[in-house]
């Protein structure tokens, strides 16, 4: 008798030994994206004007900066999982695949860190004139 849970049984399976992890993460970040991007669009509609001062005051609020940081992190996680599948399916040469996968990781991590830094700096130090 196997007394493990359902999730315990599938973890570590598959040729990559990651089981359903990639698949599940892609779905979880997708649901997160729906929620966070819905917030983003609604929040954009409630900004009184789109001049720089109004946008900077909007973005510096904790209740905007925090979901914005979450949105950047969640979207780029989803980007990493999604573009990884594109590379696996369409890049057949081993060397090119390795290079593409490396570039994808650089792109995703650099972009997410840049975006999060921009928002955090504005929230902590206020907008420059």
């Amino acid at each position, binding site marked *: 008798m196997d007394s493990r849970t359902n999730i315990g049984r599938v973890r570590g399976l598959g040729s990559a030994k990651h089981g359903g992890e990639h698949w599940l993460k892609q779905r979880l970040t997708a649901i997160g994206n*729906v929620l966070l991007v819905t917030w983003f669009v609604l929040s954009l509609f409630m900004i009184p004007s789109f001049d*720089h001062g109004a946008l900077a005051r909007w973005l510096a609020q904790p209740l905007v900066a925090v979901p*914005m940081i979450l949105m950047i992190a969640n979207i780029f996680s989803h980007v990493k999982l999604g573009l990884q599948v*594109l590379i696996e399916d369409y890049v057949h040469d081993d060397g090119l695949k390795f290079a593409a996968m490396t570039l994808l990781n650089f792109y995703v991590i650099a972009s997410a860190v840049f*975006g999060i830094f*921009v928002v955090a700096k*504005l929230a902590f130090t206020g907008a*420059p004139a």
Partner: protein
Amino acid sequence: MAKNPNRPLSPHLQVYRWSPQMAISIFHRATGFILATAGMMTLLWWLSAIGGGTESYATFESYVVSAGPEGSGLQIASNWFFRLVALAVTFSFFQHLASGLRHLVLDIGAGYELKTNRTWASVAFVAAFFATAFVALFVASRFLGVL
């Protein structure tokens, strides 16, 4: 294992009649790629322009939104380029959202009956098309002074 380039290939894309179910699959990937690159790079430029101050935001606006009557040739070309980008990203957003929601339904094991599957694939395309048209008309009339 050595690959033999002369081995027979199974029938591929070109021999099948295109159906909405096939189209939505490749559109999901293509729109995801557009959002991941053009969409996210424009979003990050916008955020960093806000963080950079009034002057950097004015630069962003002059290249992406509108350079005004005194804009340089490069800025005006860039404005038109970003209008195309905005249209592509808007359509990609709604298309990826609609087919992504469809995937979540399929993931719970529902909607695989031939007719149902075909119908909802078509619905996703139609919904994305009308949502994009609505946003484009809204932006054109409210912000660009067209219409």
